[in-house]
């Protein structure tokens, strides 16, 4: 990222700082504050939207590590999320405290990610895409057969430090904390040794191998961390819905997550935010619009409601790949750059 001129990094600490200038700190803290007081400003329906965005954000951050940074396409992310959700629900049923269940759910998803990431050691690109698609079906089969997926799991509201998480407001703050933490960790992973190795593997795995990077280790590491995120996201979703159900983990969900990365911009943490907000916002919009459309063409009402989000989403994805393959994060950089250089063009 470019900064205004005259700002020199004089120590390593400054060089690697995530937030460097006072202006950036101001923006960051304002954003955090805004998010913290958000529930006061919006209606319950929109709070629901922001909670869902938060859950999806965790999942997409994880997928971004696998696909955006390490270049290993994963179509099984919805299933990994389901793994975390269901294992989490089972352990919550056993009466374990929520704090202990979070790592368990993450580990369950992470380990299943390791197992189904194994083909990534031998294959890549299209073959990997398809083997993760196969993984999706197999994991869903396991969930349905071994974890009682068809009936779902009722989950009681969890208790954290004596506070029962039973209202939307409390869940919002729980997810707010989780997403902040998740973003911080992700940001640190990608600027550290592991992140640089991921990027090298993505750009050219054989070249990375000749540079002494253990590509097998890093591919599996990416799968593990990414799926850990998905598992935690799945657990939070189960807690929010109060219900673990296979309905939430379809192949189509996994495609949505990939789409969010594409739209946001692959291989940037901020891209995960842009993509998730953009796609979920569109979905919300089409859900709001569908009744009006339905009223105008009353014969179509039911089907429009079902088809509109899919149509809008797939059109957006195709448009982005054809006309803006670098995603919104890239556009965002351009906009920032033009503000920095204003009133000149370059």
């Amino acid at each position, binding site marked *: 990222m470019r900064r205004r001129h005259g700002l020199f990094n004089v120590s390593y600490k400054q060089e690697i700082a995530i937030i460097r200038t006072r202006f950036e700190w101001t923006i960051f803290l304002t954003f955090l504050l805004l998010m913290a007081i958000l529930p006061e400003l919006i209606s319950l329906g929109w709070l629901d939207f922001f909670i869902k965005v938060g859950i999806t954000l965790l999942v997409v951050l994880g997928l971004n590590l696998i696909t955006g940074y390490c270049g290993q396409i994963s179509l099984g992310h919805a299933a990994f999320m389901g793994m975390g959700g269901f294992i989490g629900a089972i352990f919550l049923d056993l009466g374990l405290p929520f704090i202990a269940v979070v790592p368990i759910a993450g580990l369950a998803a992470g380990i299943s990610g390791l197992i189904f990431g194994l083909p990534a050691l031998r294959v890549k690109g299209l073959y990997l895409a398809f083997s993760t698609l196969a993984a999706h079906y197999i994991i869903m*089969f396991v969930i*349905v057969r071994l974890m009682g997926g068809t009936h779902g799991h009722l989950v009681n509201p969890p208790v954290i430090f004596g506070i029962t998480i039973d209202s939307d407001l409390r869940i919002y703050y729980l997810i707010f904390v989780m997403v902040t933490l998740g973003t911080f960790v992700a940001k640190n992973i990608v600027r550290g040794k592991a992140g640089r190795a991921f990027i090298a593997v993505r750009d050219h795995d054989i070249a990375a191998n000749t540079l002494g990077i253990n590509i097998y280790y890093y591919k599996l590491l990416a799968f593990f961390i990414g799926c850990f995120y998905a598992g935690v996201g799945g657990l939070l979703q189960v807690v929010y819905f109060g219900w673990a159900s296979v309905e939430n983990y379809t192949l189509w969900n996994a495609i949505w997550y*990939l789409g969010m990365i594409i739209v946001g911009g692959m291989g940037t943490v901020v891209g995960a935010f842009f993509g998730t907000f953009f796609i979920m916002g569109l979905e919300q919009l089409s859900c709001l619009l569908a009744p009006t459309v339905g009223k105008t063409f009353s014969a179509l009402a039911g089907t429009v409601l*079902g088809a509109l989000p899919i*149509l809008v989403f797939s*059109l957006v*994805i195709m448009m982005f790949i*054809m006309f803006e*393959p670098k995603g919104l994060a890239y556009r965002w950089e351009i906009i920032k750059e033009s503000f920095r250089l204003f009133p000149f063009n370059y």
Partner: protein
Amino acid sequence: MNEAINYLITGAANGFIYSMIAIGFILIFKCSKIFNFAQAEMTILGAYIMFAITIQLKLSFIFGILITIGIIIILALTIERVLLRPLIGQPILSIIILTLGLGGFIKGCIILIWGTKMLSLPPLFPKGGVHLGKIATLSYPHIFFFLVCSSLILLLGIYYHYSRGGLAMRVTADDTIVARLLGIKVTRVLAMAWVIASLVGAAGGILLTTVTGIHYTAVEVGFKSMAVALVGGLESLAGVIVIGPFLGIVETLVAGYLDPLVGGGLSEVASFFVLLIVLIFRPHGIFGWKTIERI
């Protein structure tokens, strides 16, 4: 024993359909290195168009087939020209997600036009079947599957190996630049590959849905065919013809003997299990070529 033979026959018949659809994938992949995930939706789209023409518009069956072929050809050409030709040479990830998006778009259109109800085509084949002594029964749909698929596969093979168009296709698959130097219109070859792939896909979809009924979740037929293509190896047409019936038989055998034990559903993922195992031990498929990568 009798039921085992019946399973074998049913599996092989379904498997031939998988092979036929998989050939479509392979033709496109060989010519342009593009793998079309939307093929899964194209297969059921064919069945839906057939339904619209024969049931909703009440036209005759022959008309139905002709018009379906026409619509599918136009669609294939449009998709190839507008969406995928600009993407040749782009990262594989973009292509995968674009075709997934395209599949979603087709699915959305299907839901929009036909809704989510289970529809059914008129029964094409008489009920019952031919009894082979006391051992097994060949039901008419399965005989028909065998006949249609094997004749289509045979036709494709003849086209691919003996006609000028097939020769052009083989050259393009081998080396696009050489093909251009020899005066072959590569774009036309690609369009041809797309038309063939979509047509065999639609044919497979129509055949299968006459038995199972049309529903938009039937895209899994397409995914299983992709599994066939990958297990067989993306370079080998002959491999796919062998692997299709093999996976089909595995599926019906699992459905017959293992599903009652685990409570159903295993047959749906059986071919994916096979795929994962094959990909771990032979990443390029059983009959595929091992590619050597350089920096």
